[in-house]
């Protein structure tokens, strides 16, 4: 069936099959490969995108449910000022190693800071807990979120 949605501020319409995951549409149809597949079962968060500003695991999200929604992937988010602040904070603290978890981590950081501009250590760790990272031990990512919070994402 044909659906339309807004992705990265652009309206798209395309045919999807009922079995298609949003992740497949994003990666295979729209060729937005910044969104990754780490597990395909909702465990790792590498496939995180924002749907109406909320982080969602796109590997569990049926594409047809995206109809009329507003989707943001890393490709759209990287054009924003908020991205710059968060990415600089990640660079400062060493929050990205292999980088496979990083786009997801950055989107989750944004959604946390938007709701809670000055989160505590616990709140940060809780917000990140759906996104796995095997490289950093999370310390540098948690610190990066703190640095971004101090700078403020609404520049």
């Amino acid at each position: 069936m044909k659906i339309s949605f807004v992705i990265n501020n652009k309206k798209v319409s395309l045919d999807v099959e009922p079995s298609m995951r949003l992740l497949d549409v994003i990666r295979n149809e729209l060729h937005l490969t910044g969104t990754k597949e780490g597990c395909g079962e909702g465990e790792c968060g590498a496939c995180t995108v924002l749907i109406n500003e909320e982080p969602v695991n796109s590997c569990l999200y049926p594409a047809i449910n995206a109809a009329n929604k507003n989707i943001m992937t890393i490709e759209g988010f990287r054009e924003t000022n908020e991205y710059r602040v968060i990415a600089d904070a990640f660079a400062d603290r060493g929050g990205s190693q292999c980088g496979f978890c990083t786009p997801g981590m950055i989107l989750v950081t944004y959604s946390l800071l938007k709701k809670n501009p000055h989160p505590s250590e616990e709140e940060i760790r809780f917000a990140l807990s759906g996104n796995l990272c095997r490289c950093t031990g999370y310390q540098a990512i948690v610190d990066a979120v703190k640095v971004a919070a101090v700078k403020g994402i609404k520049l």
Partner: protein
Amino acid sequence: MKMKKFDTSVKKVDNEEKMSGRAIFTGDIQMDDAYFAIQVRSEKAHAKLKGIYVPKLPKDYYFISAKDIVKENVVNIIASDWPVFADKKVNYIGEAIGLIVGPDKGMCMYLASLVKGEYEELEPVFEMKNSYVHKEFTKGDVSKFKSAKKVFSEEFTTGYQEQVYLEPQAMLMYIQNDQIVVKASMQCPFYIHKAIMRTLGCKEKDVRVIQPAVGGAFGGKEHYPSLMAAQLATAIVKIKKPIKMFFDRKEDITYTTKRHPSKTEISAYVDAKNNIIGVKIHVGIDGGAYVGCSMVVLSRALIAATNTYTFENVSVSGDAYCTNKVPSAAFRGFGSPQSIFAFELFINHLADYLKVDRMELRMKYLVKQGDITSTSGLFRDPIILKELVDKAMEMSDYKHKVKLYSKEKSYRGIGLSMFLHGCGFTGSGESDLIKAQLRIKKDKNDIVTFYTSQVDFGQGNRTTLKRIVVDTLGIPEDHVIYDAPDTNETLSTGPTAASRTIIIVGGLAAKAAQHLKSIWKDGEEQEIVEPYVGPAYIKWDEATMQGDAYPGYAWGVNIVEVSVDPVTYEVNVEGCWSTYDVGHAIDERIIMGQADGGLAQALGWAYLEKEVAENGMFKQRTMSDYAIPTSMDLPVLETEVLDNPFKYGAFGAKGAGELTFVGGAPAFALALEQAIGKKVHDIPATPEYIMELMNHEN
């Protein structure tokens, strides 16, 4: 908010591409006409393969098997015993008996499910009883063991560990300019290169391996990609179409190589005055169906078996056992975490047995510069282990806490581990086997390009190696080009493994840059190939395991604090403090990243990550069943590096990648022991295991 300033750090070269999602990983490469390959796998752990039933395949679909092997049905991994495709016999569940290749992935999967091996079952072996590699060595005079007044013996076990690099195994292969081109998630481009040459019997120039972005590896992409490459190469010469093979997470966990489970037995021989006459150690590791690299893993486990302690008389032996399970292979630490876990616990238990203070006993036998290693080599360089211990104790308030928590039923504990890691390949492996050669050139505009075969799968080596060359030449950063390996351009500087990248390749890069600088002529094209020359003092006999095992050692101390819930038996890690001697840390931010990541994986191995095989099949096959640490499982990780420049490393650096994994599990286990007042011998220490310990008398 107090956070360390990384004064010594430079911007990581790959930051922006990784954060913005622009980095191209293997699965991100667009190649719409590529066929898919799906492994058809054995359902039996041990059986004769009498035949393979293949349904009639639609047009453009192929079944590739041992019959299609061009030259040699063997994967070029050290032992050369692992076939590309099972032929006449299968030795583990999941062993590939063939590939289905074709244009539609869903169709390939369907067809693969129809292919059936015809088996005659054989008796499988799952326990560690049939040794396929045995090694042993002694130091001093082990006949003195007989004079002991007391003998104390214990046994320790550790479990499987899955790497869980966030990007599963992925490979793309195509033909371009008469070359087979491979892009894959990999650690060692030249391992893949050789694997293809060997199975096809083709020439070096017929194969080209290019490294895209790699989403973590930790040892798990050292050897398995060679198997995938040999399989796809067999298919591509027949089909002549681009082919991709991407594993989903379940396939990756269920069928790819993991850390060796281990069983270590240790005895200490003690005289009447509580002096340790010597120790005897046997390390057994479960190698799975094929040896692969298990002999090297075993050898590292044995060399590290007395950890950071020196004894006059030592007997060390070990076996790698053949079982009908997925072959075990490389994982950060490469055998030494298993034997060091055992020895760190053992020496503490021994102190209790002898009724002496734990720390006092450990300090009495602590290794010093000038001591003889267990393989009768020499600890040549200054050792600052005592300083590392003092610093870590101070950071964690260890002395106070260890007293405080010794009160009954505090359900809290703190543990301290010391450990070392030999950097580089064992013995003369660097000079005799690897023979790294580094190519560096300069164009007419004085832009320098250098090439290594080192893969940056997150460790930051692309940044650090570049910096070594930039700083040595003393030219601006943007006058140096250093790209990911492409075997058409790069000579082999060896695999990205064994914590050798900075100590060996970094040293070689500095030397090459120095050489170029010494002959530098402005505005001229110049090129140098710099060969690795090992330090002359390294003498090693692999057969007898005697001599200097490594060019240098890195050292560390971990302190872990835990609390245990006496009702649910769940453990919380409350704090971690670490100190390291990695020589001179060239880039502190990168070292911190290794420190945090290594320790997090080690804690996962110690208490969260449980993988067991039942009748040859892994029970935990998804990421929900096999839990790695989340941000909620870990506390703030505090780390300090102490400076102790290494004579032969680039800018004084030693290796850091694996060291940071080695001490987490014993520190955790010692903390747990204090919290529950029971001795720990096995990991992972799951709630079930802790319940069992707590409900037992001793």
